[in-house]
């Protein structure tokens, strides 16, 4: 990717700042979706966990992660391997890292994007992931895991230098599929593996449906997320890509089409499979469309954006079922399918449906495959190793009583809806 030169950033400062200020709506929308898809007995815990995650991610990233994430053409640690400079890690000074406009804007945007990535796994751990390990895992994620992909893809790291160093096309991810969505989704997979399913999810060998407690909130969260995703993709494209302000309308159109196609694909699939559209899977399709479209956001044509998102919607509904029924992975919010699988598909689709001047199509697809291989082959083992290590010292899962009572009573002492919610099974002898 060709980063925006500093001289290009200053005239667009108002536009970039406006986009950055709307980016937290992506977190707000995802938080509503995660909370609505969980049980009512853990609703307050889910929202508090989201707030704590956003707070810790912002603080830790500013103090530690930002120095390793860096910014385009900023100071970096470089290794010379096979006569090629491998830009592995940012090397920003710890004192006042945001002295000029580009590093300052990069820091402010990423204070929000690291939060978006960090709240994705909360959805997979709904109803059973304790608050203390959530906070610790978020701190490690914001300090050590997120900055790696942020630097490699957005800040002139080795993935964005594949063209100069290895005569491939540069790895492209303008809207954060590889930096935000897939790392968050892989973290969700690791957390779901470690936590195991919710108690009562698989009784007598059969998967039991545990429906979300507030589907209206989930669908409203989708609408909020749309604005947040558009803002995030616009800000990232202007800052880290080579986008110009006049390309932003195309980006907005593609994002709206992606969300629409993903949602409609999920509605149609569930209508055909279950004879009625499924609201929660349709919401997942909406977000999956946005995620898949984020990699190539302003560079794909509108018909291609629709096709990419429709495939993501289909993929999500299919994968949610496979994960739940065949692989016994209990992911209440569908984060693994929506963020990891759709994000990976979006990265591949970016190579399939876009062209880069001066690079062959094969080179472009290979570059995208190198990025995908890095996410699956390097980032997943790293994330899983870190989670296993934290789980050893600070167990992720709540105890048996917490599982039945709900995380609200167990960890917060009071419920989200104390006046009108009664859980009959709390009084059943066990």
């Amino acid at each position, binding site marked *: 990717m060709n980063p925006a030169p500093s001289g290009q950033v200053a005239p667009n400062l108002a536009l970039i700042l406006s986009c950055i200020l709307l980016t937290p709506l992506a977190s707000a929308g995802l938080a509503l979706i995660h909370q609505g898809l969980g049980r009512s007995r853990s609703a307050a815990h889910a929202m508090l966990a989201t707030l704590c995650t956003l707070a810790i991610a912002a603080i830790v990233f500013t103090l530690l992660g930002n120095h390793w994430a860096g910014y385009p053409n900023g100071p970096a640690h470089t290794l010379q*391997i*096979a006569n*090629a400079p491998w830009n592995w890690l940012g090397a920003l000074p710890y004192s006042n890292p945001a002295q000029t406009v580009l590093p300052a804007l990069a820091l402010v945007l990423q204070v929000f994007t690291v939060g978006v990535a960090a709240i994705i796994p909360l959805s997979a751990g709904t109803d059973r992931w304790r608050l203390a390990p959530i906070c610790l895992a978020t701190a490690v994620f914001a300090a050590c895991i997120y900055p790696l992909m942020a630097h490699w893809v957005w800040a002139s790291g080795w993935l964005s230098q*594949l063209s100069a160093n*290895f*005569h*491939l096309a540069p790895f492209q991810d303008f809207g954060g599929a590889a930096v935000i969505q897939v790392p968050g989704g892989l973290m969700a997979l690791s957390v779901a*593996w470690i936590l*195991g*399913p919710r108690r009562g999810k*698989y009784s007598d*060998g059969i998967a039991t449906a545990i429906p979300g407690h507030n589907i209206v909130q989930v669908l409203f969260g989708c609408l909020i997320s749309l604005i947040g995703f558009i803002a995030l993709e616009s800000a990232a494209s202007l800052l880290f890509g080579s986008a110009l302000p006049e390309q932003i309308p195309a980006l907005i159109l593609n994002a709206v089409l992606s969300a629409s196609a993903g949602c409609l694909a999920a509605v149609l699939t569930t209508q055909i499979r279950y004879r009625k559209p499924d609201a929660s899977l349709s919401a997942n399709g909406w977000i999956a469309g946005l995620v898949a479209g984020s990699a190539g956001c302003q560079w794909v044509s509108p018909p291609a954006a629709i096709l990419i998102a429709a495939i993501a919607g289909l993929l999500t509904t299919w994968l949610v079922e496979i994960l739940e029924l*065949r*692989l*016994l*992975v209990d992911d209440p919010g569908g984060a693994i399918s929506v963020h990891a699988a759709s994000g990976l598909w979006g990265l591949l689709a970016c190579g399939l449906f876009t062209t880069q001047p001066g690079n*062959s199509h*094969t*080179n472009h697809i*290979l570059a995208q*495959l*190198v990025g995908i*291989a*890095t996410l*699956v*082959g*390097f980032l*997943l*083992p790293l994330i*899983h*190793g870190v989670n296993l290590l934290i789980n050893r010292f600070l167990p992720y899962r709540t105890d048996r009583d917490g599982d039945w009572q709900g995380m609200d009573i167990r960890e917060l002492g009071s419920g989200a809806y104390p006046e009108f919610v009664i859980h009959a099974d709390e009084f059943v002898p066990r």
Partner: protein
Amino acid sequence: MKLIGSLLLISGWLIVLAALVMLQALAQRAAFIAAGFGTEILGLALLTNAYTALQRRQK
């Protein structure tokens, strides 16, 4: 099985990196990257299988 799966994931990534460093021809690179991907898919399948078996035992 979990350890082997994780090692295969990392090995697949290293094969992809090796293709970048050691090979120049497009066809050779593509073949190595495909091999790396195959290794990663095998590793992911092993890891997934290990956790599915674990959940099945706990059920």
